[in-house]
């Protein structure tokens, strides 16, 4: 673990800013900025949904991704799928059978790493909504610069590797990447992301404790 600790000192995540309960009408909402990238997520549920999409075993997650500039695209569906699969793992859906939980993501600013920001924001919004969770999750993005070095945050890098870890075992739930990189880089990136996820979890704790103090 020694090496990892050193890494922690060497790398800093982009500044994060968050506000919970940003929207009054949603059951839970959060707005999160990571660097210049800003996402807004609202969570509603569990609530009544169409009988065709109901499941008797668990609640159905409905994810809606709204890009800033209007027109829907195939890439939006992909992002929805990433968020759905990740949240599905985290939400204790079996507590709410035959219901739906709607998560709506609104893109506000995208300066790279939006999906990672949206995932963290979704996690905070889920926390805010009071839906029971198995664990929380944190998404960290690493970039690979021209020299082949792994950089946390990775703004402006062509090659980016993003990993989502859970809060209990710190195991990998989701990962996705852009660009090409070698095997060693990949393993290093995953390790660094894993170390950095601690920071994100600490941030979560901070936000939530502030929020609960306020109430």
């Amino acid at each position: 673990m020694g090496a990892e600790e050193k890494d922690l000192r060497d790398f800093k995540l982009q500044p994060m800013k968050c506000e919970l309960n940003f929207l009054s009408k949603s059951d839970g909402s959060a707005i999160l900025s990571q660097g210049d990238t800003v996402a807004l997520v609202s969570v509603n549920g569990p609530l009544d949904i169409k009988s065709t999409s109901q499941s008797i075993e668990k609640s159905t997650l409905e994810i809606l991704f709204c890009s800033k500039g209007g027109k829907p695209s195939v890439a939006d569906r992909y992002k929805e799928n990433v968020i759905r699969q990740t949240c599905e793992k985290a939400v204790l859906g079996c507590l709410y059978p035959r219901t739906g939980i709607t998560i709506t993501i609104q893109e506000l600013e995208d300066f790279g790493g939006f999906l990672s920001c949206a995932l963290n924001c979704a996690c905070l919004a889920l926390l805010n909504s009071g839906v029971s969770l198995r664990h929380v999750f944190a998404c960290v993005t690493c970039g690979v610069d021209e020299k082949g070095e792994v950089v946390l945050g990775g703004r402006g890098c062509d090659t980016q590797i993003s990993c989502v870890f859970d809060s209990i075992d710190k195991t990998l739930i989701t990962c996705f990447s852009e660009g090409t990189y070698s095997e060693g880089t990949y393993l290093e990136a995953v390790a660094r992301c894993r170390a950095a996820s601690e920071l994100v979890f600490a941030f979560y704790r901070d936000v939530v404790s502030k929020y609960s103090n306020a109430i």
Partner: protein
Amino acid sequence: MAEIYKLIHPVKYFNDYISRDIRPDGRKFHEQRNIKVNVNSLKTAEASAVVKCGNTTVVCGVQLELATPKAEEPELGFLVTNVELTPLCSSKYRPGPPSDNAQVQSYMLSDIFSNSKCIDLKDLCIVPDKLAWVVYCDIVCLDNDGSLVDACIIALMASLKTLSLPTVTYDPETEEIKVDPDVRTPLKVDGCPVATSFAVYKLTERNILLTDPSAYEEEMCGGLGAHFTVCLNKGLICGNHKFGGSHLLMENQEEVLKIAKERANLVVKVIDSCIKNEKSIDK
């Protein structure tokens, strides 16, 4: 009997197999299914390939069209890939516009493909700002029995490797276009990305990796995109995707990369020998 058991207790049925170190179709955990490739079997397409990985069958057809390039990128041609999940390949799909699932698969495919940079879009431009090739690659799934992205990438690469472009003469004065389909230049393909999927199944205390999962195994391991897909092009990773599903441990990852590498080499060999065969028959 076995089928009824599978219907009533799908999870238990699966568990029974896995805990005895074998998969329901008789494979070992790291065994992949047979790959069959057949190129240029469709004459209406410019290039085509039929790929079977076990039961999973996909057909890729390439068509060429001409268009003016985008104003923002006047030196680039177009390469459009789409995955079509026809209703006939599984009862899960209904006719109509592509489902969310099909869109995710399409996106993953084009993402892997563009990340691997195996085709330079500049090669597809004929006259900058005036004329460029549009390469439509439609990948049709005829039978979806898991690891669809793997099969799609193989089909796409096999057909692109056989694709050749007709010569085009463009007269800038009259804007007249002439195409001679008899004189062709093959398309430059740099490398060959190969995807390998692994399903992660969490058996108490043990995470099991299943290479090249079938549709049933995928479903048992968390469904849509929950399996781990690694894509390698010339030894470099050009995409890995895993969305939700069971957790993946660190020590599994090295194992995964090793298997993926072996498979990548194997697939490249299969494609190359298939194309060679086809050419020798042609002669």
